[in-house]
């Protein structure tokens, strides 16, 4: 019993997997998706999408986005996605330090908003890499 999992970013279609289960980091908590799920659209928080397919588990770090779920498909629209295996703790830490610096130097409200979002993404990335 499988469904079609797709991970799409603005630059490319990152992955297409026949999956038995997908766990998505929904805005209101993690959500496990199996086949025949009720049609749902949810926004995502920065975190790990984990896909269980015939060839084992694959994890992707996404920096927020949306998931469109139907009975036979699960499509993730993410602005950026990285395979967990390509994610290193050092890179994540570096991103976190950079985001922290940006947050400290932000002056206007708009800048602060952007910096805060980046910080949240970097924080989740460190979590995912660990």
């Amino acid at each position, binding site marked *: 019993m499988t469904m079609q999992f797709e991970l799409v970013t603005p*630059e490319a*279609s990152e992955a297409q997997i026949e999956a038995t289960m997908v766990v998505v980091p*929904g805005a209101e908590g993690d959500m496990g998706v199996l086949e025949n799920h009720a049609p749902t*659209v949810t*926004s995502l928080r920065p975190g790990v999408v984990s896909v269980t397919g015939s060839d084992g588990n694959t994890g992707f770090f996404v920096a927020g986005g*949306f998931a*469109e779920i139907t009975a036979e498909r699960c499509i993730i629209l993410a602005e950026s996605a990285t395979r967990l295996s390509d994610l290193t703790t050092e890179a994540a830490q570096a991103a976190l330090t950079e985001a922290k610096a940006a947050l400290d130097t932000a002056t*206007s409200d*708009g800048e602060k908003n952007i910096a805060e979002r980046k910080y949240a993404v970097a924080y989740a990335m460190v979590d995912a890499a660990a």
Partner: protein
Amino acid sequence: MASLKDLRDRIGSVKNTRKITSAMKMVAAAKLRRAQDQAQASRPYAERMERMLGDLASRSSSDLPLMAGTGKSDTHMIILGTADRGLCGGFNANLVKEARRMVSELQSAGKQVKIYCIGKKGAQALNREYGDLIVKRVEDLDKPALSYSKAGAIAEDILAMFDDGQFDTATLIYAKFQSAIAQIVSRQQLVPFALDGAAGDQDAADADDSAYEFEPSEEAILAELLPRNVGVQVFKALLENAASEQGARMTAMDNATRNAGEMIDKLTLLYNRSRQASITKELIEIVSGAEAL
């Protein structure tokens, strides 16, 4: 009348020009293919996004500023996408012309206009006339390569200005890629969100598909979707622009190469004629000299 040496030099120089233009044409063709591939790869995301947005927008009457506007339309932001370099035929000139037309339309309607320039050429061309209207210049986006994060940064910048109340509506001017010969200068309303006809048609088709549950809520998703959509639209326009630029350059360089070839033919003919003329003249001189003896 030019001497034989002058003509020879001239032919040599035009031949060099032809080599350069034909090399540029080949480079543009390669870059065009890359730009088209990139545009192709970005399509699924944009389409899904549009469908989701169209679906949400058609059923909720939201009063979010990005959706419903600010309630006034005093200040317009024109986002003009051009190339960083020239030598691509009328590409930049056409875009700038459209921007000028739009500025004068808006100004004669008594609106305030601001211009956001993406690409060196647009900023240069508008600098003298509308230099004080340009609020921002962005350059060198395609070095080393155009990416979504760069388009996203521009979108964030634009949205920050919108949140600040610096403008009420925003329009994007870019060249839609049709073929290497034809690029269509288009305007697209970016803020507030305009549901275009295509998305509306699709809605009817997947009407039964739209029984979605929304988490956390329709409103919350819409609020998150709208700013992202600005990023996607900017990215799409920049990709179209990149392909159009290379297409226009390819055509322009093809013409230049052909013109150089024609010029070489003409100059060669002239060169051969003058050479022949000077030989004939010398012969006549010798013959008439011998007869005089």
